[in-house]
């Protein structure tokens, strides 16, 4: 730690009793170490889940069955989804929360550091169990990440118990992480840091944490019912015993829809930090952003059945869920317009974080629009379970959530490592990603509209050309992420020294700390203006 403020660092070093080597990481209770662990783990999972996507795209490169068995294909789509949702996106956000929230609110660390250590270290266990189930006799989970009953009960492989326990552990991990975030934000803010002065990343994470606390237990209940239905003869979802398979979908999506906002709200916070920094203007409409986030979170509890329009709901219910879903575009629109208004007449520069942030706004909006199309009940009957849905949720999750995570990494890397990342490589990564991701996902819209169902290892001949194009885009996008890996490793190992505030227009307490940020954040509360 040879940073500019030498006196403060000497003071810090006295407090560092960290063990060396591997045990430092196993035993750590430091929010920055745990943040780094979360981020590294999520990147590893991103590569593992990505490799599964490559298997899927290789099989779909041409019609017919070439590379994998249909059952293995189904395992790939299922585990790809589970890993990307619970292993890549959610832990990345928790990692960012760990790194940034204490620095942003002027706290020395997270409120519950020991629990923090646990909430991270049970994650690798969960994913070891899940990945190990792929090697069991009969294969791993093959019923889709949504594990609809009776696919996950009557017809599931013997390894389903492993899937259930893995999801339980992932859920416990996110719940512990969420509790830590809430307690930190509510009790550890520096004097003078009122709620309405908090950076939006902190705000969006506070709301996300409440969503997690509300719905992760419901997911735990759902998988528990699947477990008892499969192994202990209960009939929650079995019609023969008086249950109802449609009930599964209601309970699952009661969790599932807030879950998709869990995966996007922190992105809104990240973009709301980056856009003003590179526009050199204050964020337009701060308080409206806070209220918009809160209303999106509340509305997310009233829209779950828009995933179920084709289950034979009464028309009145379909209309209710359709209108509620469309209502969500209002607060989301407020956000998009606020970001655009922030850029309006700003003095913009286009460093890599800004490029990813702008791509986020454009491409996330495309995902939002296809979501609006899916919300329209009568046409949803055509789009349901087709590649149109696949295109939609990959636009909001890949070019939405994952692009925002990449933007965040580029934006805060100088603060984390003390080095500037390689801007040339970063731009290469951006352009390779943004072009390939559109080649990958945009044609899927047309495939879906033309009637290609999702989760199939083979397809009708007329879809062949577009699928080839999609696969090429997929391979290119996968390879582009290796550039990101190079950027991260290069930046961690060295590079141009980063000043405390590498971005001219950035605001927030974290930029008042030296780069790299000292092991313990604000040991004395900072002054809030």
């Amino acid at each position, binding site marked *: 730690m040879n940073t500019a403020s030498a006196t403060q660092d000497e003071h810090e070093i006295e407090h560092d009793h960290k063990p060396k080597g591997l045990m430092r990481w196993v035993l750590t209770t430091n929010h920055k170490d745990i943040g780094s662990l979360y981020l590294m783990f999520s990147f590893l999972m991103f590569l593992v889940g990505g490799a599964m996507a490559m298997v899927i795209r290789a099989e779909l490169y041409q019609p017919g069955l070439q590379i994998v068995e249909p059952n293995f294909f189904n395992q790939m789509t299922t585990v790809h989804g589970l890993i990307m949702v619970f292993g890549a996106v959610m832990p990345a956000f928790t990692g960012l929360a760990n790194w940034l929230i204490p620095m942003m609110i002027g706290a020395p660390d997270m*409120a*519950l550091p020991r629990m923090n250590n646990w909430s991270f270290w049970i994650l690798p266990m969960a994913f070891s169990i899940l990945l190990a189930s792929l090697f069991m006799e009969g294969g791993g989970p093959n019923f889709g990440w949504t594990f609809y009953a009776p696919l996950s009960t009557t017809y599931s492989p013997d390894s389903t118990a492993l899937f259930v326990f893995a999801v339980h552990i992932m859920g416990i991990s996110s*719940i512990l992480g969420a*509790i830590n975030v*809430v*307690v930190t934000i*509510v*009790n*550890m803010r520096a004097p003078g840091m009122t709620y309405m002065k908090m950076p939006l990343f902190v705000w969006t994470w506070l709301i996300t944490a409440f969503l997690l*606390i*509300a*719905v*992760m*237990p*419901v*997911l*735990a*209940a*759902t998988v528990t*019912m699947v477990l008892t239905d499969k192994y202990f*003869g209960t009939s*929650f979802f079995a*019609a*023969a*015993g*008086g249950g*109802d398979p*449609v*009930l599964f979908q*209601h*309970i699952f999506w*009661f*969790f599932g829809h807030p879950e998709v906002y869990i995966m996007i709200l922190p992105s809104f916070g990240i973009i709301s930090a980056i856009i003003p920094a590179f526009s050199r203007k204050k964020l337009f409409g701060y308080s409206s952003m806070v209220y918009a986030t809160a209303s999106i979170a509340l509305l997310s509890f009233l829209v779950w059945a828009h995933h179920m329009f084709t289950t*034979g*709901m*009464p028309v009145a*219910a379909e209309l209710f869920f359709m209108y509620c879903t469309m209502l969500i575009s209002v607060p989301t629109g407020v956000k998009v317009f606020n970001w655009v208004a922030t850029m309006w007449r700003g003095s913009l520069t286009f460093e890599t974080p800004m490029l990813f942030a702008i791509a986020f706004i454009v491409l996330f909006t495309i995902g939002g629009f296809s979501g609006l199309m899916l919300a329209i009940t009568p046409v949803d009957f055509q789009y349901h379970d087709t590649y149109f849905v696949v295109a939609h949720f990959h636009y909001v999750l890949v070019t939405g959530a994952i692009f925002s995570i990449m933007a965040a990494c580029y934006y805060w890397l100088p603060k984390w490592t003390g080095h500037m990342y390689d801007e040339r490589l970063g731009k290469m990564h951006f352009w390779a990603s943004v072009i390939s991701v559109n080649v990958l996902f945009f044609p899927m819209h047309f495939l879906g509209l033309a009637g290609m169902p999702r989760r199939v290892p083979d397809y009708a001949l007329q879809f062949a050309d577009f699928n080839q194009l999609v696969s090429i885009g997929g391979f290119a996008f996968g390879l582009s992420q290796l550039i990101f890996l190079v950027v991260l490793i290069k930046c961690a190992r060295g590079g141009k020294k980063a000043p405390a505030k590498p971005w001219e227009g950035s605001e927030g307490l974290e930029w008042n700390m030296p780069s790299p940020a000292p092991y313990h954040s604000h040991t004395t509360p900072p002054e809030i203006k």
Partner: protein
Amino acid sequence: MTDSTSLAQRNKRLIVKLFSAIAVMFCFGFALVPLYDVFCEVTGINGRNVVRSSQASVLIDKSRIVRLEFTTSISPGMPWHFKPMTKYIDVHPGENKVVRFSAFNPTSSQIIGQAIPSVSPGPASLYLNKTECFCFDQQALNAGENVEMGLVFFISPDIPKHIKTMTLSYTLFNVTDSVATQEIAALF
């Protein structure tokens, strides 16, 4: 020092609240099961909750005719043949009617079946009253046994005017294994 103890206390209080919220939401997940049943029963949404009536109807609305269609399906793992003996029947609301379903067990062992009804359109299920039905109980058929199973029903005279046709579907499930487990469990 007072400041730090109060922080620990505040943390503790908040953690207790958050954990109780988590416990409540976990229970809520399970509570959705009975809530769903009650909701469906009140609104008739998913067509499962056919009314079980203890007495026959007395009022007959001769001015209207409602067509009731019958269809059956067999769930995987159930070897029985199962057919409605009447494809459809036209009835006046309030009129008591009997229809029969035939079931045949082609295997060489005893099998226990359970039929689960479903009515479409869903809300119409609230007006279909069954006074007797084979679906009220589990049915055991010996090897090669053939039976006719009866259903006695009437349609409530207060059925909305716009419902002119309704379909009653039965899905037959093989419950032999779960019955065996329950019987073994009952021995202990």
